[in-house]
């Protein structure tokens, strides 16, 4: 029974949360009140954890709530519930795209959206920068990373690894 409940609740979130990852947060607060699968302070902690760890907040919360409630199987059921609407809807959308991608209107639409998308990404990264780049040493490292990235053009994975090490060494 708990598995069904976990699945259904996270399926609902997966279906209703439209937009970026932070959209899931209000739904998660509601869940906390409704079932007590996690406390509000646990949710807040996990939001902070998600700022750093791999994984969107939604996936992290599904796994966490599910795990807390019904161990690893609970975590799996909740997570699958969360991602299932996305997968199903996107497969449908992809099939539609296959059919309509040659349509001129669709092309114009997508082309016009690209600058908007870049604006969205820029805005989002500004938000992240506001909470990440907090004092001069961060600015210094930001500039340093930017220079490394522009000059050496290596895999982002490499820079992330270096960043982790530098973080420890310089006690950021």
């Amino acid at each position: 029974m708990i598995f069904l409940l976990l699945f259904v609740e996270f399926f609902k979130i997966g279906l209703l949360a439209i937009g970026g990852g932070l959209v899931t947060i209000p739904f998660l607060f509601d869940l906390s009140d409704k079932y007590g699968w996690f406390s509000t302070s646990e949710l807040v902690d996990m939001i902070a954890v998600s700022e750093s760890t791999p994984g969107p907040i939604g996936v992290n919360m599904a796994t966490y709530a599910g795990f807390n409630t019904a161990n690893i199987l609970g975590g799996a059921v909740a997570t699958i519930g969360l991602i299932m609407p996305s997968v199903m809807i996107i497969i449908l959308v992809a099939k539609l795209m296959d059919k309509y991608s040659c349509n001129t209107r669709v092309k114009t639409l997508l082309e016009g959206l690209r600058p908007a998308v870049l604006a969205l990404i820029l805005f989002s990264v500004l938000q992240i920068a506001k909470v990440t780049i907090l004092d001069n040493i961060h600015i210094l490292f930001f500039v340093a990373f930017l220079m490394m990235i522009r000059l050496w053009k290596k895999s982002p994975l490499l820079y992330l690894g270096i960043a982790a090490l530098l973080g420890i060494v310089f006690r950021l």
Partner: protein
Amino acid sequence: MIELWRLFRLFFKIGLFTFGGGLAMLPLLKAEVVDKRRFLTDEELMDLFSIGQCTPGIIVVNVVTFIGYKQRGVMGAIVATIGAVMPAFIIISLVASVLRHFMDNKYVIYAFAGIRVCVVALITSMVYDLARKHINNWYSVIIFIGALALLVGMNFSAVAIVLIAGITALSVGEIRGKLKK
């Protein structure tokens, strides 16, 4: 055609290094899926992001599912998505059970602080590259600046921006089409 297990491994790797939310995945996707393997073009990646903003669900999952579908159909979609969320699943399961105090460890905190700054730099660099390449006519510039103004100045939501930009683009397209005739 890429084999399913390679697809899984690729998205597992991408998922593993996506620190701090879906946006951080974009530079990785650009590097691995667009630049390196050419599964899709820059333009297509941005298109997926727009579509992902408007469809239900987490944007990361939406984009990954799409790319997986394009490579290996429905199985590809499923395999790619599971690959991408599996690292988070494993890590959070560990955090929830034995590593409760993982985030309290000072080395972890320092390392993640460094990573977060690097992520901001990676995304900034990517936006700069994409903007240079794809914002190259007067109406793109207007849409870009307009969208930014609405986001910063008036707190519009992402979905609203996509809708407005979409309607603008279609209208401009219609007008230009009529003018040509």
